[in-house]
């Protein structure tokens, strides 16, 4: 087990952690979830059939672990609010009230804005953006991780950029209006 862990860690750990971090937007949670990913992967490593590459398989497991966590948080939030049904497509948008991570704070303002607005995109759009632009996966690898066709990846990527643009423009307008009113 240790040997396998060492190999996976040395090859993929940085990417996996980064992917989880950007999905859940919390270092502590990402640290916990990455452990869960290794447990699942090491436990089922012998049954991995190799129909996809090892890399995309790992991402795929990480995706499920993160989504499970996000949905559990949403359910908890709904229960706390006394709602069982969520009538909007905003499940993925558990509002991030945490301060920006230090790694983001020291970046240019554009980067901070993109990080903030990415959260407003749908679950699918966030997944594609993270895999394509942050993780630099190819369209084919992204399709493999998400279990989609390449065409769906392209369409979702296109829509994600459009959506991000809309949110960024609205964000900029809102900020300028605030400035004027001051």
């Amino acid at each position, binding site marked *: 087990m240790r040997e396998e862990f060492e190999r996976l860690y040395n090859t993929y750990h940085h990417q996996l952690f*980064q992917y989880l971090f*950007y999905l859940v937007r919390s270092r502590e949670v990402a640290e916990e979830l990455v452990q869960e990913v290794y447990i699942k992967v090491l436990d089922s490593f012998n049954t991995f059939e190799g129909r996809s590459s090892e890399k995309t398989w790992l991402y795929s497991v990480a995706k499920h672990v993160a989504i499970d966590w996000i949905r559990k948080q949403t359910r908890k939030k709904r229960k706390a609010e006394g709602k069982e049904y969520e009538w909007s497509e905003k499940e993925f948008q558990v509002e991030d009230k945490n301060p920006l991570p230090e790694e983001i704070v020291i970046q240019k303002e*554009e980067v901070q804005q993109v*990080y903030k607005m990415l959260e407003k995109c749908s679950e699918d759009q966030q997944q594609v953006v993270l895999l394509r*632009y942050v993780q630099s996966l190819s369209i084919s690898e992204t399709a493999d991780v998400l279990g989609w066709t390449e065409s769906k990846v392209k369409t979702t990527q296109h829509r994600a950029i459009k959506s991000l643009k809309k949110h960024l423009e609205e964000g900029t307008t809102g900020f300028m209006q605030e400035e004027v009113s001051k």
Partner: protein
Amino acid sequence: MSNEKWNDSKIEETLTKLPPMKDKQSKDDLFQAIESRSKKEIPSRFSPKAKRPWILPAMAAAAAIFLMVLIIPPFFNGDQQFSTNDADQNSVMNTADVEENAADESAEPESESSLDGSDNDMNDGGSEDDENTEIANDENDEEQVSPEPSQLNQVIYIANSYVLDSNNTGDNFIVIEKQSSEDEQSLEEILMTSLQQSDPTSGQYLSDLDSVKTAESLVELHFSSASSLESLTSSEHEQLNQVFQEVLTLYGFAEVAFESGGETGIIFGQQGEVTSLPLATNNRGYYVISDEQDSYLISARMAEEEMASESGDPLNYAETVAKMAETEVSSDWYESAIPSFVDVSEVRLPGTTAEVYYTVSENEEIQNEEEQLETFFHALKLTASPFTLDNLQIINEETGEVVEVDLAE
């Protein structure tokens, strides 16, 4: 703040500049944490939970009540699914449901809050119709309710995989096909048939489905073995998940739970052990895909149609139907489920009933009018499924003909 306008390439470039995030755990610390969690949490790959002592008596009580439900309905006249005068019968069915749910402690009492949610949802579009309600009811007195039982309530919905070849990309979508049911079947039997015939897996793994149970907004799938869904490929896992999302929501469920070999949970492909999955109850509308032989319905969710208003709120039923009617085919592979010769003039939402008023254009030469109207009715019915509406009335304004669908059954 930069005033420079955002464009696609600037956004793409900025995305690649999102900084790397490094794990602060050391490799050794991480391995120790994994080892310790692994020992605590997962002694084997799948660790079913201990059987609860009340489960057998509860199941026996549920079975007895289920038998009563099967025996009692023949003593009542009329078609329980379609008649407008079946309140008594429905109340018998509802009472049985309540008793069954009381016996089954595993069912979470979700309906009350879901009703609250839907009330709010419906009020968004329905409040302005308060005045109209009386008028609509007066009008209804004169309308002829279709005397024949509608085919709408006697169909099984099957999910099919539809591959879009028009751009040679091989896009794969889950579409809904309607299949008529000759025998009167229980909801559980319908669900079983529906799922097994929708099975997208190469190994037909849903044949391991032993039984289906329902409890309010929860549907339980009981498999013969914990490994029934273990061997799914990544795409099969995704497709099966989509089938659950697309099919089970049509029957009004908000969550699907799994049992295997009498224990809670199942290994769901690479996702590992899963006890339940939330179902996307937020679809808004259905569209049509037609090929040479048949037509299928595709959900707005699957077709990635807009499902929210400009303010970001999900569309209510009236808004959804309006959206379905006005859809300009942005994509050439699906079209509106509202035929070109049909004009939806109004949608009213008095209480928990939806009334859709339509007229048929006489100027057009219409082919397959009946088939197209039937598809239109089905689309309206399925569109109503995420809302907790009790009734749907589809009213031809000119002839007064009413197709009435009991959504609360």
